């Protein structure tokens, strides 16, 4: 059959010609799929609502030679809360970007799909959306086989004897104080490492209960940015966006 149905989240979308868009979908049934949605920028299109980024929709796709085509679609969760808050929108993009960067086409992983959908749902309501994103990033890399080593030093194996000092993206884990000397790895304190260990198994529903210092939040953001950049071999565009909207200053 040329037609097949999937339940998917739109993790990326880019303009193609005047009114068409190329969608990157992450589906429960088939994993990552690229599909063209024709005419969705026109106000008359019936599909345009369900193909917006971050939407969870039912798709009927037509198999193509290179790209599949969206034949029909219907939105299931449209996440209006993500659309009405700039920071939540940026966080949703931070959640979708590594899924796109770390997964390969047509390799389904139901756990990744459930984690993605669950996190987008939480991001709509949770007040601790920054920690929700950090928890998602850690759980995603763990699900895909890149779980960082947070229990001992990846170099000497004796992390418990020395205080934690840094995180090495290339080695995929923590470095103790003596092994971190002379390296330019990202700083990571013992407190940050403990929170990261906690977040690996933490339920996003309980995220609001965590109390994390600004220092640890900043360290965690840097550690995970470096680690995801190392794994995907790309700079995070969504993080750049979030930083630019908070750093941008109007002329004096």
């Amino acid at each position, binding site marked *: 059959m040329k037609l097949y149905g999937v339940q998917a989240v739109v993790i*990326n*979308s*880019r303009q193609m*010609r*005047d009114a068409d868009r190329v969608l990157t979908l992450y589906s429960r049934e088939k994993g990552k799929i690229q599909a063209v949605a024709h005419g969705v*920028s026109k*106000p*008359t299109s*019936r*599909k*345009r*609502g*369900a193909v*917006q*980024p*971050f*939407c969870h929709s039912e798709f009927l796709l037509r198999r193509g030679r290179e790209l599949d085509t969206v034949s029909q679609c*219907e*939105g299931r969760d*449209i996440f*209006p809360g993500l*659309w*009405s*808050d*700039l920071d939540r*929108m*940026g966080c*949703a*993009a931070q959640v*979708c*970007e590594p899924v796109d960067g770390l997964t390969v086409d047509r390799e389904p992983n139901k756990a990744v799909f459930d984690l993605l959908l669950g996190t987008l749902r939480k991001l709509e309501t949770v007040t601790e959306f920054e920690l929700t994103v950090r928890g998602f990033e850690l759980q995603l890399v763990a699900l895909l086989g890149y779980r960082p080593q947070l229990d001992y030093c990846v170099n000497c194996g004796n992390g418990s004897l020395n205080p934690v000092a840094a995180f090495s993206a290339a080695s995929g884990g923590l470095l103790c104080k003596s092994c971190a000397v002379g390296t330019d790895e990202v700083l990571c304190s013992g407190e940050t490492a403990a929170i990261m260990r906690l977040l690996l198994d933490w339920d996003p529903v309980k995220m609001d209960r965590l109390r994390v210092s600004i220092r640890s939040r900043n360290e965690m953001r840097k550690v995970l940015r470096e680690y995801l950049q190392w794994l995907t071999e790309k*700079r*995070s*565009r*969504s993080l*750049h*966006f*979030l*930083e*630019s*909207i908070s750093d*941008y200053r*109007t*002329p004096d």
Partner: protein
Amino acid sequence: MRYAGAVSRLIGELARLPGIGSKTAQRLAFFLLSAPPEVAENLAFAIREARLQVRRCPVCGNLTDREPCAVCADEAREKAVICVVQDPRDVAAIEKYRGFKGVYHVLHGALSPLAGLGPEELNIKSLIARLENGLVKEVILATNPDVEGDATALYLARLIKPIGVTVTRLAHGLPVGAHLEYADEITLGKAIEGRREID
């Protein structure tokens, strides 16, 4: 089939235009070669003139062949209301309506969380500079109703509101002539949210 140098170059240049593939480029090239010489000359002249003369208006950023543009120079326009749009084509679309008497500001793009496009890449600084003289009373955010357009509108509202200018957004809802059963969930949701009392 391979063509002679000049023909091949013409096809190649035409194929670089958006929406033109190699077949269409060939068809256009052969039309230009078979039509009277003045057709090709007029086209080449029009492209060259437009490219040399058209630039961004220093006030609003719209594309124009004079400074300031016709809208900014028009004394009858209400300068206290600025309509912010993403693209010069949006100015043309709103002008078709003929009911808007304010002035425009063209951003030349939209913020994109997924593509990593930040405010430094848009024409925002000059918008803020226009608002600082205290003459502007309202800014209408007419960005597209999608993720990029909404992100831009939210960001601009965050930036403009502290200046003390009223910020409004174009209404979302059902297109004129559409049937309710064909509307998507987001549009219906926004239409219900923005419902109004009938006078």
